[in-house]
């Protein structure tokens, strides 16, 4: 690492970056004010207004991002676009600016996010059409987009934290969007509290980092990384990873994401699949220069990632709610991304983040379309045979399915997942030598499970006989174009996003990898564990495994027409355990909720408040009364008694003076 990490970075002023974030913010404010104060507007007119403002803001943001990207591409490699807005907090040595920066990493994220989110805004216009909270919805969605973009474009960790908390808050609002249903409102509450627990790690990381480096600015941190020892870097990285685990739903803080499906489906697609939940991966990638100093922390990231991937995949096997399957699948795929980041394959992690964003958004939107046409039905046991009746939705779901299972070798998730698998095996681990093999085979098995449960979902929803309400079935027709077009575009996106970065081993260009390489190349460990000639062979192997998963699921669900989670019956007790989600919610209820409440009740309330403070006060008042009572007795009202006091007093005085 003799190269100075900074020599190839040049900051270039670009004064139009603010448009990217200002458009959605303005949209949110305008729609918010319209909702609060525009109650007298005619409903049909207001709806047009909300849609125009909401979608317009998202599209404007995408356009601004696209033009910025075009400008960015003309610049030499390693350039960074920057814009200074204002001085946020300045106090002594504490100096933080509200600045935005776009390098290759944030640039690719921004283009991807604004694109996906524009499509989902459009889709929402159809999906939420008859909802009384239509305007409120668009206001929240725009606010989310704003926060997410602030998070990505932040020049320093504190601005990133602004976006980080902002997206968490918007997610709270949108999960509990139908707040009259207390269960949904509580799901939002759970999300924001679990995220806050993770944020404790983030905040601790901020404090330690600032104490050591004296800055939150990414460039300065990277320059001053010699301020960190291996130990301090490990502590900081683990703190930030805890925060990332909260936002990106990793073990042990994944519990909020399945519940978050209470929100409207486009929200699940945008926030809880494509964008917000990937913020943790982005954070780890952004701090790559720290993680490279801390092999133990990186290893933790990889291990937690692969464990979460496996764990969530097993849970996805038994879900009967179409959105829950996708939710667990998201957790599992996020685990893959963390695996990539943990083995220093940040580029591969980012690649998977983008392909996953496309195919999972596509899957969620298709699922939303299914729910929409079935009038709110989410149980896959009451679906089936929908293929012929809603062809466009089926096509887009098929595209998403093909991308996530990786069974069609040249589309979507295949390359990105395979890149991660390859790097997990090929990157030597300095701490535990046999870890790469363990990671690889666990991930490979998870890929098998992924193919299996996704095929189960696909088959039970679209093939076989319809098992639900006949009345709905008779009036079945596909969703309106405003929904199907974004879906199909995302489907095509998930098909071709794999071509962003075809590995060089099979003659590809690896263009995304090369695009972001200036940011990561100092932090990337060389893949020396196994010979690179193995890569095409391993690629075939994972193709085979995926095909096996698909065929197995096809055999069980397509051929035998079962709908129960057959695979889990092979393991005694497995079905029950998975259906109860391994009792994790119950465990946390005892370990966290009741523990805190119990502590608050017994220690804070009973011991401190009632015994130490109130009892002390009571004793004081009683003491005062007691003394008063004693003194009262001296006031007997008899002259000789008072005379006696005078004599005694005088005697005492004389004694004191003479002594």
């Amino acid at each position, binding site marked *: 690492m003799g190269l100075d990490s900074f020599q190839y970075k040049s900051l270039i002023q670009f004064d139009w970056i603010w448009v990217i974030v200002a458009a959605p913010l303005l949209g949110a404010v305008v729609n918010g004010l319209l*909702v*609060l104060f525009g109650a007298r507007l005619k409903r049909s007119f207001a709806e047009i207004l909300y849609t125009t403002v909401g979608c317009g803001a998202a599209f404007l943001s995408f356009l601004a991002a696209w033009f910025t990207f075009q400008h960015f591409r003309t610049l030499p490699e390693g350039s960074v676009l920057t814009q200074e807005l*204002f*001085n*946020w*907090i*300045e*106090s*002594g*040595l*504490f100096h933080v600016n*509200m600045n935005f920066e776009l390098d290759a990493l944030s640039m690719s994220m921004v283009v991807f996010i604004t694109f996906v989110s524009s499509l989902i805004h459009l889709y929402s216009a159809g999906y939420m059409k008859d909802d009384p909270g239509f305007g409120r919805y668009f206001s929240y969605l725009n606010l989310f987009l704003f926060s997410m973009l602030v998070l990505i474009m932040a020049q320093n960790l*504190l601005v990133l*934290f*602004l976006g980080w*908390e*902002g997206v968490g*808050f918007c997610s*709270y609002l949108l999960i*509990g969007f139908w*707040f*009259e*249903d*207390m269960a949904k*409102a*509580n799901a*939002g*509450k759970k999300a*924001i*509290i679990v995220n*806050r*627990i993770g*944020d*404790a790690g983030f*905040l*601790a990381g*901020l*404090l*330690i980092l*600032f*104490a*050591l480096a*004296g800055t939150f600015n990414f460039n300065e941190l990277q320059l001053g990384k*010699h*301020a960190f*020892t291996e130990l*301090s870097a490990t502590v900081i990285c683990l703190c930030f990873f805890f925060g990332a685990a909260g936002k990106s739903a990793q073990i042990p803080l994944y519990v909020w994401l399945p519940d978050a499906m209470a929100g409207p489906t486009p929200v699940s697609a945008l926030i809880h699949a494509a964008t917000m939940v990937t913020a943790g991966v982005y954070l780890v990638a952004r701090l790559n220069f720290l993680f490279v100093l801390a092999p133990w922390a990186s290893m933790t990231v990889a291990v937690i990632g692969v464990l979460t991937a496996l764990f969530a995949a097993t849970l996805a096997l038994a879900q009967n709610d179409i959105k829950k399957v996708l939710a667990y699948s998201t957790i599992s795929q996020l685990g893959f991304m963390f695996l990539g980041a943990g083995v220093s394959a940040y580029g591969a992690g980012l690649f998977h983040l983008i392909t996953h964003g496309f195919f999972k958004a596509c899957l969620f939107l298709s699922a939303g379309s299914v729910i929409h046409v079935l009038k709110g039905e989410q149980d896959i046991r009451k679906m089936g045979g929908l293929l012929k009746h809603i062809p466009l939705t089926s096509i887009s779901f098929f595209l998403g399915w093909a991308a996530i299972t990786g069974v069609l070798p040249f589309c979507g998730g295949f390359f990105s997942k395979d890149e991660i698998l390859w790097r997990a095996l090929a990157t030597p681990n300095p701490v535990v030598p046999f870890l790469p093999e363990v990671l690889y085979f666990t991930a490979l098995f998870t890929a098998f499970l992924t193919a299996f449960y996704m095929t189960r979902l696909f088959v039970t929803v679209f093939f076989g006989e319809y098992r639900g309400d006949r009345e709905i079935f008779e009036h079945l027709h596909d969703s309106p174009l405003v929904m199907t077009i974004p879906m199909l575009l995302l489907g095509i996106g998930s098909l071709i996003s794999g071509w962003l970065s075809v590995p060089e081993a099979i003659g590809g260009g690896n263009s995304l990898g090369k695009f972001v390489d200036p940011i990561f190349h100092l932090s990337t460990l060389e893949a020396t564990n196994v010979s690179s000639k193995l890569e095409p062979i391993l690629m075939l192997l994972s193709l085979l495994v995926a095909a096996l998963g698909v065929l197995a699921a096809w055999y069980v669900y397509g051929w035998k027409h079962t709908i129960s989670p057959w695979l889990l019956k092979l393991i005694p007790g497995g079905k029950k355990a998975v259906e109860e989600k391994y009792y994790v919610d119950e465990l946390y209820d005892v370990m966290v909720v009741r523990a*805190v*409440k119990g*502590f*608050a*009740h017994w*220690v*804070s*309330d009973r011991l*401190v408040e009632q015994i*130490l*403070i*109130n009892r002390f*006060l009571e004793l004081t008042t009683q003491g005062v009364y007691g003394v008063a009572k004693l003194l009262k007795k001296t006031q007997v009202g008899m002259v000789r008694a008072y005379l006696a006091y005078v004599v005694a007093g005088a005697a005492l005085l004389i004694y004191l003076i003479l002594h």
Partner: protein
Amino acid sequence: MILSLLIGLPVLGAVLAALFPQERIAKALALLASLTTFAFSLTLYTGFDPANGGFQFQELMPLVPRFSINYSLGLDGLSLWLVLLTTFITPWVILGSFGMIGKNVRGFYACLLLLESSVIGTLASTDIFLFYVFWELMLIPAFFLIGVWGGPNRVKGTLKFVLFTMAGSLLMLVALLYVTHEVKSFDYTKLFDHSFPEDVQFWCFLAFALAFFIKVPLFPFHGWLPDAYTEAPAGGTVMLSAILVKLGAYGLLRFCIPLFPEAAKDFAPWIMVLAVAGVVHGALMATLQTDFKRMTAYSSLSHMGLITLGIFTFSLTGLEGGLVQMVGHGVYMAGLFLLTGMLFQRRESHEMDAYGGVAKAAPLLAAAFLWMVLSAAGLPGFAGFTGEILILTSAYKTWPLPALVAIAGFVLSAWYLFNMYGKVFFGKGKANSEEAKNSKKAKKEEEPKPLADLSWNEGLALLPLALAALWIGLNANFFLAPMEKTLEMKVIEKLKPPPVMMDFAAQQRRLQDEIESNKKTKKAH
């Protein structure tokens, strides 16, 4: 003359409000007086010279020449924002509580204005005798506010509040007389220049600090807080939580630390521990409450702990964080307590379970409440965060462990605030219990009667507070810049050399250097 004007205007308003027989005119006069005071106080900001750390806008008039007691006023970077906070909050409290007070309306507004006047007097006094007079004067309107217009247990609340405060103030009076006797002057600047021997510092620090700790309140001197906050009428609670308690922290900064720096340094670790204990204890107690006003009271306690923590880091960042947090806390606590008052006015209950579904019935109220909840929960970009991050970073640098423990307050605040918000504002609406009992018509109606949304005066009262919460969150420099010079001159300078508890960064660097040198020697071998 501007400071005297700011002290006098509210008194004039109070007298006028008390004299006019019509309540509506009295209200209008009170509002007018407080608004005029606020308008005049703005000249303090425009006329303030940030480069000057000494007292500005000084006034001097001999009061009791024999004891050299003077009516002397002045303002510096320490008191500037607190005076502005007071003049800023009062009009909105008056406006917001227009519909809340049922009896002796004129007296209520007169008390609010007298309180404002005495607070400004306390902050502006540069004569320590005058300070003490104003300090005690504050107690009288506060006493009436809780005792006359309070809730069902108001007598208990008042008694606790007054006794606690008096106990502290008396000890302070003793110490105050002692130090002024030593210096032979009541002039603050003379006291400031004098350096006391260590044992005197020890006892005087304790005596002064106790009064201020009770006011803040620092854990475990908060026995008065839950009852006083809960029982006081909304307007009174706002004055208590947003303004009065800040004077405790102000006293620490103005008197305890600069006059007795050695003792302050000795006590700092203990106080930091107590401050963090308060942060965690207040937050834990808040999670237990079913009464949202009481919950807000405990959350206020938790946040005040953070302010004390910041002050006793003795670093510029921590001090500035503490001061800016005082302003921010004042703004969002004013908002929260006004809103709890508005809810109470609609349903006569502070129990969370009595509500539900308010967001549907009263979207503006819900939005305003959420805004304040976000500020209190320390969302970046809102008032709560700016102070919090400054305090925590500097506290961590001085002593890591308490700062890390204080993060629990950050986590728990989301817990109790969003829990409360969900219970009150989400879900299905519940029947208005009072009306259901009283009117037969309500019984027949299946749909519960929805709560009314914000009225014009409530909305107008909340709007400036909401904007201020955002302003503090996004433009912290506006607030930080004028206080810097004063803090450096009057606090930091006095504390030199600063106490080294555990300079983590320095320690790390030392370790690093050792490793580097080891490597070099190995290479050399």
